């Protein structure tokens, strides 16, 4: 029992250490370039964790999450540009809109084979992109078609979610990431989490045990799309420019899914791990080989994905968790006498 406690203490203190490091990093790391890279890393970890709620726990394969990023980005940006509404509010509006859309997509497709759901989300994502690219005005709202929208950097400050330095962005996305991880943790230990996992793995058995599988998936989808849209607003405010081809792109949808799958879908740490491992690969290969070896990072992604799926279908978090536990047990061994 005592050993159990110290082991838990060690885990809590290492978590605290990670917290201190991540929150303290901008005090040491002054380079805007590196902060920028880290912000994107957290953003991807956040997006992937949000994806994980439905793609991981519910056991389906959504491949159109970029559309929710787009919905979030466009909602807050249009509300801000045309009506002067704070992006914080716009963020919520975008989230709710995305949740509604997510439910509309999930409603008919969750009852079908998984392949249909994957296809529906792809078509939906591409459909939204094509629409945005073709629409200049949607009723009173100016989408500005394929040219995208630019946010003029005026009235900088917290109320408008706009800053001249990188640090505030860093902290905002970090807090968002921590929040989504905490949410994932609580869900995974709740009735909903058990029901999602059960329904994802063996839907028939789950149903016979009282699980309304389709409804659980819908709840997960609504949460996932809501959270994803929030990141869309953040991204719009971070880059101050949104462009349908880059923000609602198939590549983004796939990258989110890839990171989650390689890291380990359905686990809490998996998406973060995936982002931690893969974002640097893509950043550095783009910086160093972008001109000479275009697409190198995507070849690496693809190869890693295939290998991980063959040898570690539950993602890289599984062997790493094993190593971590082994380490933990070695540091604080079982007392003699017990097994």
């Amino acid at each position, binding site marked *: 029992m005592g050993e159990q406690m110290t082991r838990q203490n060690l885990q809590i203190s290492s978590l605290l250490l990670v917290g201190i490091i991540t929150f303290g990093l901008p005090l040491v790391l002054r380079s805007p370039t590196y902060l920028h890279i880290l912000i994107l890393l957290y953003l991807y970890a956040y997006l992937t964790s949000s994806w994980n709620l439905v793609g991981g726990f519910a*056991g*389906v*394969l959504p491949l159109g999450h970029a559309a929710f990023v787009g919905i979030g980005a466009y909602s807050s940006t249009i509300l801000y540009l045309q009506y002067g509404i704070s992006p914080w509010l716009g963020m919520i509006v975008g989230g709710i809109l995305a949740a509604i859309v997510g439910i509309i997509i999930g409603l*008919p*497709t969750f009852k*079908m*084979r*998984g*392949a*249909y759901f*994957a*296809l*529906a989300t*792809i*078509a*939906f994502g*591409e*459909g939204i992109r*094509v*629409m945005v*690219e*073709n629409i200049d005005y949607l009723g009173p709202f100016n989408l500005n078609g394929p040219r995208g929208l630019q946010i003029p950097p005026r009235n900088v400050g917290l109320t408008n979610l706009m800053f001249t330095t990188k640090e505030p962005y860093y902290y905002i996305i970090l807090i968002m990431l921590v929040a989504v991880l905490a949410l994932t943790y609580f869900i995974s230990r709740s009735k909903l989490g058990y029901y999602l996992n059960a329904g994802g793995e063996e839907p028939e058995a789950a149903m016979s045990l009282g699980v309304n599988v389709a409804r659980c998936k819908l709840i997960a989808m609504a949460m996932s799309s809501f959270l994803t849209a929030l990141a869309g607003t953040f991204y719009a405010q971070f880059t101050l420019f949104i462009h349908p081809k880059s923000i609602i792109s*198939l590549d983004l949808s*796939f990258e989110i*899914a*890839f990171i989650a*799958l390689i890291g380990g879908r359905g686990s809490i740490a998996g998406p973060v791990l995936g982002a931690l491992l893969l974002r640097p690969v893509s950043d550095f290969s783009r910086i160093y080989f972008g001109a000479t*070896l*275009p*697409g*190198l990072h*995507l*070849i690496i*992604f*693809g*190869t890693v*994905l*295939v290998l991980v*799926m*063959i040898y570690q*279908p539950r993602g890289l978090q599984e062997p790493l968790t094993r190593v971590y536990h082994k380490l933990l047990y070695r540091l604080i061994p079982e007392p003699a006498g017990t097994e």
Partner: protein
Amino acid sequence: MNYIIEGLINGILMGSIYGLTALGLTIIFGVLKVINFAHGSLLMVGMYVAYWAVSLSGLHPYLTLVVVVPVMYLFGYYLQDIVIKPIFKAEREVREPITVIIVTTGVWYILDNLTLLVFGPQYRSIQDNPLRGKMLEFGEMLISVPKLWGFFAAIITAGSVYWFLQKTRTGRAIRATSLDRDAASLMGIKQYRVYNIAFGIGTATAGIAGVTLVPFYNVFPTVGVLFDIKGFIIVVLGGLGSIGGAILGGIIIGLIESVGPQFMAATWTEAIVYGLFLLVLFVKPSGLFGVRYDW
């Protein structure tokens, strides 16, 4: 009036070629119950093989079928055997192997970007093309000759695959596996060999589609993506697993694309295609023609 008829005819011709590009997708789904996300990339590979066969040998584009079909068959056969089979084996108990879908996505990214790396991003089209811009004239109407040949290729390929599945021993083994893989393997059918063959056939049809496209379409590393998503839409419209449905689904898309622009901006037709797709998916997921499997 002629204008509309010309649009209709061209829509049907191009649509049947779309159907041909999606044929392999539906064959592979029918047997393996997996959407092969790499199918567009296989088409792209087929186009590159055809392109290089023409450019290096100076053959007539359609003669390259002799090279492309066996090369693509083997490519598909071993792709399934080496990359996809291990996952099927690992997830034998899983009813619906999502992991396989994911792996095919990985293959898609590898193939596309490897091609980009090796051949560069430039658009290529065959030189000394005997079919370039060739048109048949019917009064006022112009019909593209390579598209007409593509139409025939689509019909013949779909017909032969159908015949093969109905009449040959291997075909019957494939159909048995598609109906119930466990029962089939109890009957002594080697499940994974059947998967390999089905994947090979599916890939070979992508090769045929590649050959018919090369005379009038540019070849570039991401060309597959255009057909990939169109292919998904086509097979769902026609009913996943249905061979005839794939051709019909393709023709529907072809018609929307050729007739649509006479009424609206061309880019909107793309949105209509997605809209129709989602509508069918939501209202009648077994496809427009209500066929589960027609073989």
